[in-house]
């Protein structure tokens, strides 16, 4: 029986559905950037990338360290004698010293107010892999996780695509600065229950993406109490923990549970990565940290699908053991972020555009362009977004891709550019706002 017809080749549902969510404008804007990349001298009219939260502020510090520490790399004469042992090391527990320095680094970022056990550190394919692995460990297909919105667009893929888990958004509003409240979580939980959806936990990003804000102790405590009451999990994605450049200081869930007497630690889990704080997304270092022994065991077995290259583990062990370097890096990084954030938000304020008040962290800011919308709808927001990408030539991320409720908000990333490019970007936005403001006035 000849069935050589290509079109009848059967693929899986996963391969053919669009639950990966990559058809959203969040990803489309990147294409515009790829086609026409800005360069200060070679392509000054190109699109400036402000849609990718990448931290390139302190590469100079890292480059200097690498030059001064050739034995940290197995790719140098000084380090080559370690090549063999590193190349053959494939234990999914990871290099012990690597886990130890990661634990120490995480402690340092939290002001040494908490301790982390290196044996609870499990590797994953970036935080992307960590997010997914937690879902595989904590929920079955059809189960749901509560996610405060607006949220990181790729959660749609990371949490749902292969796992079959649903996302139930927890609404946050601009009227109270998009602050997450226990009440909002309870509403979302109750609604899910009424629809017979089995909620397995709450996953939140703290510091928040896209808001750039941190949770206070009281809110964190109330959320921990909530999950304990309902016996559901709390997964805290703390990937931006070292990007807090202003007060209030960062409070990790690790700190919270230290203070609480009656907390079931089996419910508490942390996601971390070196992609944002250190600016190493290319290294693919995701960290799963759980207080639940069974989850650690299961996640560790699954880490075979996303282990960190032993070469990378080896390098990072050296880098992060250098306390002087780490302290200097963290402090300079914060200063540069604070400056970038300040310059942009101040420049925007001068033309009447406000950014979310109280934002103290992240590699981006959450900007309110509601006054520029023709009407307060998401269609109008997308229209405005297309103009910004195509005419103003800035790739920014429209709020709708973050599943927020209110149109007009945009996320702009600033930590991936030098001062010169930053100035160009700011100037473009200011010019655009002023031009449109004038048009708006004329119309009235």
């Amino acid at each position: 029986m000849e069935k050589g017809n290509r079109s009848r080749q059967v693929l899986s549902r996963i391969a053919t559905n669009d639950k990966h969510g990559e058809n959203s404008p969040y990803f489309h804007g990147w294409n515009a950037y790829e086609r026409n990349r800005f360069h200060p001298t070679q392509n000054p009219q190109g699109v400036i990338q402000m849609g990718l939260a990448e931290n390139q502020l302190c590469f100079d510090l890292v480059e200097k360290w690498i030059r001064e520490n050739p034995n940290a790399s197995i790719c140098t004469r000084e380090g080559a004698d370690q090549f063999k042992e590193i190349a053959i090391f494939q234990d999914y527990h990871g290099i012990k010293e690597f886990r130890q320095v990661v634990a120490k680094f995480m402690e340092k970022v939290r002001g040494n107010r908490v301790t982390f056990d290196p044996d609870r550190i499990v590797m994953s394919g970036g935080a992307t892999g960590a997010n997914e692995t937690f879902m595989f460990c904590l929920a079955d297909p059809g189960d749901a996780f509560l996610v405060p919105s607006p949220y990181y667009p790729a959660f749609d893929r990371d949490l749902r695509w292969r796992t079959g888990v649903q996302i139930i958004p927890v609404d946050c509003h601009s009227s109270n600065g998009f602050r997450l409240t226990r009440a909002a979580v309870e509403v979302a939980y109750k609604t899910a229950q009424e629809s017979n959806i089995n909620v397995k936990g709450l996953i939140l990003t703290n510091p928040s993406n896209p808001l750039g804000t941190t949770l206070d102790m009281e809110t964190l405590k109330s959320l921990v109490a909530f999950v304990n009451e309902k016996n559901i999990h709390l997964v805290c994605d703390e990937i931006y923990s070292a990007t807090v450049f202003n007060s209030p200081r960062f409070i990790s869930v690790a700190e919270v549970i230290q203070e609480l007497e009656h907390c079931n630690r089996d419910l508490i889990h942390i996601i971390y990565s070196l992609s944002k704080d250190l600016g190493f997304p290319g290294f693919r270092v995701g960290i799963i940290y759980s207080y639940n022994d069974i989850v650690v065991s299961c996640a560790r077995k699954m880490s075979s699908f996303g282990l960190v290259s032993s070469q990378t583990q080896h390098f990072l062990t050296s880098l992060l053991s250098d306390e002087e370097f780490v302290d200097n890096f963290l402090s300079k990084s914060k200063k540069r972020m604070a400056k970038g954030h300040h310059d942009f938000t101040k420049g925007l304020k001068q033309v009447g555009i406000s950014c979310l008040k109280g934002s103290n962290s992240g590699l981006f800011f959450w900007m309110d362009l509601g006054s520029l919308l023709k009407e307060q709808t998401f269609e109008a927001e997308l229209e405005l977004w297309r103009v910004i990408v195509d005419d103003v030539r800035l790739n920014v991320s429209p709020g709708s891709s973050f599943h927020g409720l209110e149109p007009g908000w945009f996320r702009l990333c600033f930590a991936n550019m030098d001062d010169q490019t930053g100035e160009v970007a700011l100037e473009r936005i200011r010019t655009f706002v002023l031009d449109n403001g004038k048009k708006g006035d004329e119309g009235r």
Partner: protein
Amino acid sequence: MTQRRRSNQNSSPETELQTPETTGATAMRLIVPLQGIVQGRGGLILGSLIPCALFYFLQLYLKRNRSPNPPPRSTSSANLGELPRTSSRSNLSSRGSIGPVQISVRASSIAKPSDSPYYIGLEKAAEDPYDRLDNPNGIIQLGLSENRLCFDLIEKWVSENLTDSIMGREGGELSISGIATYQPFDGMTELKVAMADYMSQVMGRTVLFDPSQLILTAGATPAIEILSFCLADQGNGFLIPTPYYPGFDRDIKYRTGIELIPVHCRSTDNFMLSMTALDQAFNQARKRGIKIRGILLSNPSNPVGNLLSRDMLYGLLDFAREKNIHVICDEIFAGSNYGSEEFLSMAEIVESEEFDRTRVHIIYGLSKDLSLPGFRVGVIYSFNEKVLAAAKKLTRFSSVSAPTQRLLVSMLSNTRFIEEYIETNKKRIREIYHLFVAGLEELGIRCAESSAGLFCWANMSSLIPSYSEKGELELWEQLLNIAKINVTPGSACHCIEPGWFRCCFTTLSQEDISVVMERIRKVAETCKSSC
């Protein structure tokens, strides 16, 4: 691709794993019937006697399950012995009656200590590794298909070629942005180009690989999982010839929900796949209501080490076309064929004929042929655009680390080095293979005919106390605990004939072989005298 060697800094004390779940679930089962008794039906005496008796039996049941010699555990749970036990345990008592924490069904089963001798043996060997000088009574690892024969060549290459540190040279300047920033998740173009050429070289330049059909993943382990997610849904099945690599049970069954349907191969055929058996297995699966979506093959095969012939490859393609299913070829040992038979890639077959290529997919990696398992570099090679598009998105979860990609671009592009490496590697594997197999023959142990891989497939059925899986495992335990060598028993590979063992020999030096043979001889003599 094979199980990991634990860092041997400290051996964990053997502690049992008693999950809060099992305690809670068992308790609930007894409390509910108790209520009926206590609430008056049995009267006061019965109402107090029976609960006491039940409680006593509960304790006895729990105690029996918590045996003094805990069941051997896999690498994963070994670490649990080192974890601070306070957190979850103290909360158990303070938690009250809300019940155990629910994790996923999948996680509960995965987290359990593995009962596969494959993993148990690997862990034990890692805890007490043999070293000729420092630990001459340690366990000799023959259960991990690792190749240490050619590191001298790699070290020489590194010292002569790598001077740039972990950073690349972007436009002549040492720059971190070339490796630290986000890269394409399915691999840098330069590495795809270098990998395509390397694969062609390793397979004897009889086939060309197109870089645009190549996807890079963090090891062959995620490569096979990603491919599975693309080709089949939960509950579907892949046909797989036995014996097969034990890791497939993890790679495919952990999260995809796809079933592996064994197609048994026999020693009379030197464990070569028979089309009749394949057809039978397909029909039987269909009768059971399982939709078969593909065939998963290892070529060269693991654990036997034989090669698929041209006729067989054609036959498989015909079969796949007839049933409209996929063919997945794991060719990870392609460069480790030391025999006289030439390796034939499925890519070569489809290139030369008018086949529907969109059903053919190849898995590769650098863990075996180049001995770089730590670097996590795997390949999906497919002729199917849709599969490539979906797999590319899935590499988001399993990308190759950028510094490693840069290093490999240098290494793989150096064709002269690769040429020397491939030839020397084959030669050294061949030498060790002959010595090892000859050593076994002197002990009356014959091996299946093989010409590739890092292992041999040895027939120890004359030594097992009973011709059964039980007998095989008894011999395996004796070899592990008395002879102190870790080999992989055929049952872990789903072999239908008891008594076969996979022995990996490419981590051994020639001196080590005599030690291994001596140890086996002692056990063999004990077995013969007691049989």
